[in-house]
């Protein structure tokens, strides 16, 4: 299975993602933002970081970079595109997934482990996972998911919420919302469910001795789903 990780100026989780994808069997290529052509890929990942120094709005500049036209075409033809953290911010700026990510409600950079609950498994990313609650890491200043009421209705009607912030029992009360996101939303799909944007970092949870193993479960399952 082939994957591509796009590196933008200011990306800083691109190599972590490369390590994670390679560890679980992807043949991964790093792709520079200024390239025109996407290599043949089964999965494209927009990594976390601070592309273009978060100038103007997080992800806004990166969403207009050269390679993104190929990424958008790939996504529109049904290819799997996953954006993590800044990658999620880039995805919302391209319009591939609805909504925006505002500054965290309490104006602080949040860096900690959180629990997330999968909302539906009828998609290539989560199908066949045998548990619903995962512990991932978040590290962001602008992760406060926002959309209009009309968009929210459409998102819910189409089952586009990918994950919610919750506690270790999967309860999604407001007190387990780290950043003020509408309805505790931590990740969103496009309508077709081939594009996934989420703030939490699965690639930071792939080693028991360093962090945790929930990211390993996610990546192992993902490559099996794509095969």
């Amino acid at each position, binding site marked *: 299975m082939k994957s591509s990780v796009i590196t933008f100026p200011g990306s800083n989780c691109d190599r972590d993602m490369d390590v994670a994808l390679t560890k679980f069997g992807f043949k991964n290529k790093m792709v520079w933002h200024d390239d025109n052509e996407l290599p043949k890929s089964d999965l494209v990942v927009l990594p976390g970081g601070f592309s273009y120094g978060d100038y*103007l*709005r997080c992800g*806004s500049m990166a969403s*207009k970079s050269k390679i993104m036209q190929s990424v958008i075409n790939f996504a529109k033809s049904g290819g799997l595109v996953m954006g993590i953290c800044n990658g999620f911010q880039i995805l919302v*700026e391209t319009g591939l997934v609805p*909504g*925006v990510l*505002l*500054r*965290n*409600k*309490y*104006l602080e950079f949040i860096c900690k482990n959180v629990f997330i609950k999968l909302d539906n498994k009828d998609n290539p990313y989560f199908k066949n996972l045998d548990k619903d609650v995962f512990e991932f890491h978040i590290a962001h200043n602008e992760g*406060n998911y*926002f*959309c*209009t009421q009309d*968009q929210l209705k459409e998102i819910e009607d189409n089952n586009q919420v990918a994950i919610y912030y919750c506690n270790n029992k999967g309860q999604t009360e407001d007190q387990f919302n780290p950043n*003020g996101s509408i309805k505790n939303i931590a990740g969103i799909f496009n309508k077709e469910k081939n594009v996934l944007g989420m703030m939490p970092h699965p690639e930071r949870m792939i080693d028991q001795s360093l962090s945790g193993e929930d990211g390993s479960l996610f990546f192992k399952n993902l490559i099996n789903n794509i095969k």
Partner: protein
Amino acid sequence: MKISAIITLKKDVLDPQGKVIHQTLDGMGFKDINEVRQGKYFEVDVKENDPSKAKRIVEDMCKKLLANLVIEDYQIIETQ
């Protein structure tokens, strides 16, 4: 000619920075404030001398990059 654009958060969107600025001003003794909203200001020098054409160009920029219309409104001002 120079065209300016002011980008502000839409009314329904939470502006935590504006809130903190409001609280700070209040603490400094500025008690007569209903609300503070923070925004962005751009000054674009366009290679176009016709004001309505220049404004249209900057409006296009606002729609495509300078503003995110899900959360922000823009206002175009001719400055020169």
